[in-house]
């Protein structure tokens, strides 16, 4: 049925166009032969096609445009006629003889245009007559198009200031009056459109109406273009009149569109100076009008205006823009009881944006807006309306973006309250935004109180908010979130160790509540933050010692020990082990032997009890050896214990090559270059010999199995260690031993059952080259190397 309707309409349009063209043809002929009578006759007939009621506005527009083009030709003809001496006044009467009103008025407007140009009568009088006569068309669509035509032909002929049609004093008033009247009438017609035809087609009609809105709005645009509409005129005449019409028409579509139109077409400074009037109209609009969007747009414009230049800011203060907007929003929200939460929040969000632009110094305003919003939300709990949620996020993000400083935002007492209303997911997102802002601006959070406030704000990321809810959290997302928290922890810093310790404690308190999933992410940064603090304390330990409640490394290590323990329980033994070792080394630097020993002990326990994967063991043992090698705080006994165990672990690794490498690495535990107390050449050699034995065994096993040559590299590695200690002056390492090893390797590599290994070859070659290099260097080292034959 609908498609039939459309088809019919196409037919009707085609017929109307055909009729129009036919008459236009005769009209052209009359124009060509200067036959005024026929020209009028056929033009009137042509225009009669516009009398149709069958077309939708869209199709009617098409027809109208064709008539419009034809009328331009007719207008030219009238102009010619007037030049040839035909009285334009007579012409003006003549066209009024047409019996049908619609063609008559189109012709009248067309002649009127020429009449104004002729200046035989004041433009204002003619315009007034035209706009008055157009009242005869009460049919909405036809009336709108006729008046649109009038508007079109009169645009350049208004008796505006500076226009050639400007008459005596105050004719600009007439120009304004004319446009206002046309606007008013058009709006009435437009509003009336909705009552035309059966109510079942209402929806379609509203759509059609919407398509015509610009015809009405055009008038406001024209008004904004009138030179003579200065602020005074706008304030005293234009705005009140337009608003009167807007309010009185009681139509939501029109009210919404026109309010928006006013806001968009007139200059910002006018809005600013007439804010009270404009805002005053808002609560008077129909409850169904989307006033929040209107107001938001207004505030957006004003915000942009404020942002355009600092010079305009005093204007805002002078007119108390904030108070007025705030007041208006309150009233609108009050008046529109049915306004969805999202709407109210949008309004506050816009006001906030405005405030941040205009009054960046007024944090109290910002808090006030948030407060008002929270009040509106009170009792609503967590919102499940995605629009409202989005708006709250916007509301909360705006101050972050503006101030680029979380500390400022933390001063807003209502901020966390507003955040409370976000659902868990969004709350997390918002927390992410907050962290992002901090990161972007590299804001340092410098007191424990602020940290406390901040963590309260982002608690959605710090711990599970709702115990019942175990939503499927995407693993990647979770990682990202937690990593962002980790980054955030890096931003918490105060130069004062006391405050810093408080910060560490505060963070610790919060992250320990995060549960096993979060700890692996949040504990390491805390540990390193604390270790940095420890390092800072090292210089000043003496003066601080003894005082109660004062930050001391010892105290911090105690905290850290417990913290890592929590992590170890998760369990993430490898990470915990690494952290224990980091702490141990820090304790070493702080000369706290028992503490360092405790950390090592913890690490060993983890190694023994928790780390079972062979590769993880290899990694761990090398870290242990590497760390232990650097420890200088231990007395002989402690050191022996730890070293003994490390060596033991090394020898117990699963794979022979790993054993071998760990064991020869242990050699360094007995020989520390810059520590004369730790230079036990014998035990170094023992380690290396043991490594050789293991390498040998490994080699034999491999050969028995498949004849792999890969393991020969172990011997070269051990050779390197020999050379290392040889150079370092370990007298246990003899030339003979080195020589023997070189020969062993060479033999091994040349043996028949060995497939060649280029890596081993290269390694050996570069090692031998090295020996050669050292020989040639001369001096003590050259002498030392001299006996070695490579």
């Amino acid at each position, binding site marked *: 049925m609908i498609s039939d309707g459309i088809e019919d309409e196409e037919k009707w349009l085609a017929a109307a166009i055909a009729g129009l063209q036919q008459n236009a043809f005769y009209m052209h002929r009359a124009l060509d032969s200067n036959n005024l009578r026929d020209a009028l006759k056929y033009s009137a007939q042509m225009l009669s096609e516009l*009398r149709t009621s069958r077309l939708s506005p869209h199709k009617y527009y098409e027809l109208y445009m064709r008539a419009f083009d034809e009328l331009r030709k007719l207008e030219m003809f009238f102009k010619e006629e007037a030049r040839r001496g035909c009285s334009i006044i007579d012409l003006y*009467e003549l066209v*009024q*003889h047409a*019996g*049908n*009103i*619609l063609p*008559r008025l189109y012709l009248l407007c067309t002649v009127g245009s020429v009449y104004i140009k002729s200046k035989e009568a004041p433009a204002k009088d003619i315009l007034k007559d035209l706009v*008055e*006569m157009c*009242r*005869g*068309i*009460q*049919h*909405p669509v*036809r*009336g709108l198009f006729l008046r649109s035509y009038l508007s079109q032909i009169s645009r350049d002929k208004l008796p505006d200031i500076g226009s050639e049609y400007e008459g005596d004093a105050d004719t600009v008033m007439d120009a304004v009056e004319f446009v206002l009247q046309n606007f008013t009438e058009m709006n*009435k017609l437009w509003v*009336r459109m909705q009552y035309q035809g059966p109510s079942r087609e209402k929806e379609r009609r509203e759509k059609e109406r919407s398509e015509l809105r610009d015809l009405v709005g055009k008038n406001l645009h024209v008004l904004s273009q009138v030179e003579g509409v200065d602020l005074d005129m706008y304030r005293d005449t234009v705005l009140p009149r337009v608003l009167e019409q807007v309010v009185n028409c009681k139509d939501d579509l029109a009210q919404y569109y026109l309010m928006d139109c006013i806001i968009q077409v007139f200059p910002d400074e006018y809005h600013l100076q007439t804010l009270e009037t404009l805002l005053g109209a808002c609560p008077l609009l129909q409850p169904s009008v989307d006033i929040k969007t209107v107001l938001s747009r207004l505030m957006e414009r004003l915000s942009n205006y404020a942002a355009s230049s600092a010079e305009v800011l005093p204007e805002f203060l002078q007119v108390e823009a904030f108070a007025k907007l705030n007041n208006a929003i309150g009233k609108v929200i009050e008046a529109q009881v049915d306004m969805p939460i999202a709407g109210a929040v949008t309004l506050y969000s816009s006001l906030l944006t405005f405030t941040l632009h205009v009054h960046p110094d007024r944090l109290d305003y910002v808090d006030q807006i948030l407060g008002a919003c929270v009040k509106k939300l009170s009792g609503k709990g967590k919102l499940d309306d995605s629009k409202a949620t989005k708006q709250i996020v916007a509301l909360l993000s705006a101050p972050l973006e503006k101030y680029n400083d979380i500390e400022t935002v933390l001063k807003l007492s209502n901020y966390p309250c507003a955040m409370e209303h976000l659902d868990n997911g969004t709350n997390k997102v918002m927390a992410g935004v907050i962290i992002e802002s901090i990161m972007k601006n590299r804001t340092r959070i410098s007191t424990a109180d602020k940290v406390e406030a901040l963590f309260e704000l982002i608690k959605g990321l710090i711990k599970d908010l709702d115990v019942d809810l175990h939503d499927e959290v995407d693993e990647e997302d979770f990682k990202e979130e937690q990593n962002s928290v980790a980054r955030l922890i890096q931003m918490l810093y105060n130069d004062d160790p006391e405050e810093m310790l408080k910060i560490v404690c505060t963070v610790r308190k919060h992250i320990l509540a995060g549960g096993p999933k979060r700890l692996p992410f949040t504990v390491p940064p805390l540990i390193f933050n604390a270790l940095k603090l420890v390092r800072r304390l090292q210089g000043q330990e003496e003066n601080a010692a003894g005082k109660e409640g004062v930050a001391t490394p010892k105290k911090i290590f105690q905290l850290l020990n417990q913290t890592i323990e929590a992590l170890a329980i998760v369990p993430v033994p490898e990470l915990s082990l690494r952290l224990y070792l980091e702490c141990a080394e820090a304790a070493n630097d702080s000369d706290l032997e028992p503490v360092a020993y405790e950390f090592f002990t913890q690490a060993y326990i983890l190694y023994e009890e928790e780390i079972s994967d062979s590769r993880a063991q290899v990694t761990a043992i090398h870290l242990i050896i590497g760390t232990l090698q650097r420890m200088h705080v231990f007395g002989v006994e402690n050191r022996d214990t730890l070293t003994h165990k490390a060596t033991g672990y090394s020898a117990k690794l699963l794979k022979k090559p790993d054993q071998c490498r760990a064991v020869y690495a242990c050699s360094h535990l007995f020989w520390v270059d810059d520590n004369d107390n730790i230079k036990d050449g014998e035990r170094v050699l023992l380690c290396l010999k043991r490594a050789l034995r293991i390498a040998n065994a490994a080699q034999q096993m491999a050969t028995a199995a498949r004849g792999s040559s890969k393991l020969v590299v172990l011997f070269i590695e051990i050779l390197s260690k020999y050379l290392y200690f040889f150079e370092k002056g370990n007298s246990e390492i003899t030339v003979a031993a080195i020589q023997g090893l070189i020969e062993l390797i060479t033999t091994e590599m040349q043996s028949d059952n060995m497939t060649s290994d280029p890596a081993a070859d290269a390694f050996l070659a570069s090692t031998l080259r090295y020996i050669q290099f050292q020989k040639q260097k001369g001096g003590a080292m050259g002498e030392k190397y001299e006996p070695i034959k490579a």
Partner: protein
Amino acid sequence: MLIRNFLIGAFKPPCNISISFADARTRKQVPLKKENGQTIMVPLFQSQENIVGEVLIEPQQGKKVEHTGVKIELLGQIELYFDRGNFYDFTSLVRELDVPGDLYERKTYPFEFSTVEMPYESYNGVNVRLRWSIHFNLLISVKSSFVSNDLKNNSVQTFIVLSLYILKVTISRNIVSNVVVYQDFVVRNYTPLPSINNSIKMEVGIEDCLHIEFEYNKSKYHLKDVIIGKIYFLLVRIKIKNMELEIRRRESTGAGPNTYVETETLAKYELMDGAPVRGESIPVRLFFSPYELTPTYRNINNKFSVKYYLNLVLVDEEDRRYFKQQEITVYRLLETS
């Protein structure tokens, strides 16, 4: 200007006769629609004017015209079409121009009707005609059979019946032959601006359905006038489609049971397109000039009257018509230019 009237086709006229007015060159000419539909230009007079002129008679070459008298007659006649052919002469002024005798050569007879009282204007209505003319009668003795065969021609006969009733009568007697030549002219009388000319203002309506108030700026309009007015919609509960203003002429002829009333709609002028809402006011501006109006004639010699009405018509979407008729007076304003 010389106007010739020939007796066409009836019979071969014995002479040519023409009537001319003394001020023909300067006098205004106006169109007059004749019975046959042709429009001719005729001189325009008004009451109290002198009607002066001359008649020129030219006998056929070498022919003698014997006549029993020459006279000229100014006639004001009313013809009612239901009684067609029966002219009622309300004015008849006769001047004897010559005693009986013979005419051998051309001769001119001057004539003059001074300050003629012509109270009624020429009028061509639906059922009635008011005609002003000058008739020139040449009473000719019958000498031979002159009835033309053409007379039997129907079309010609019709013409004669319509145009020259007198001739027909003469022939029927068949004793004498009257050569009658006539000259129509038009009389128009002018009225000064009325001293009192109230507007027409009225509220009309159908209860709880439609209330309007209309206002026309005057009650008396001259022929080139324009009606300025406004229609206010005080209450609209019907779906109006459009509104028109009609100019209607009511011509009433005869008297008593023989009264014929004919109403013509001279103008249909659309005032409004679409449905107004309460509070709308629609402007009226209707120019009279495109329409062929006459002044209002209240009572022309008890024979007929012509009256004008403005009829405001509202049409609703079901094509029901709601109207209100108001009489206006139309007058002929003395043109100053």
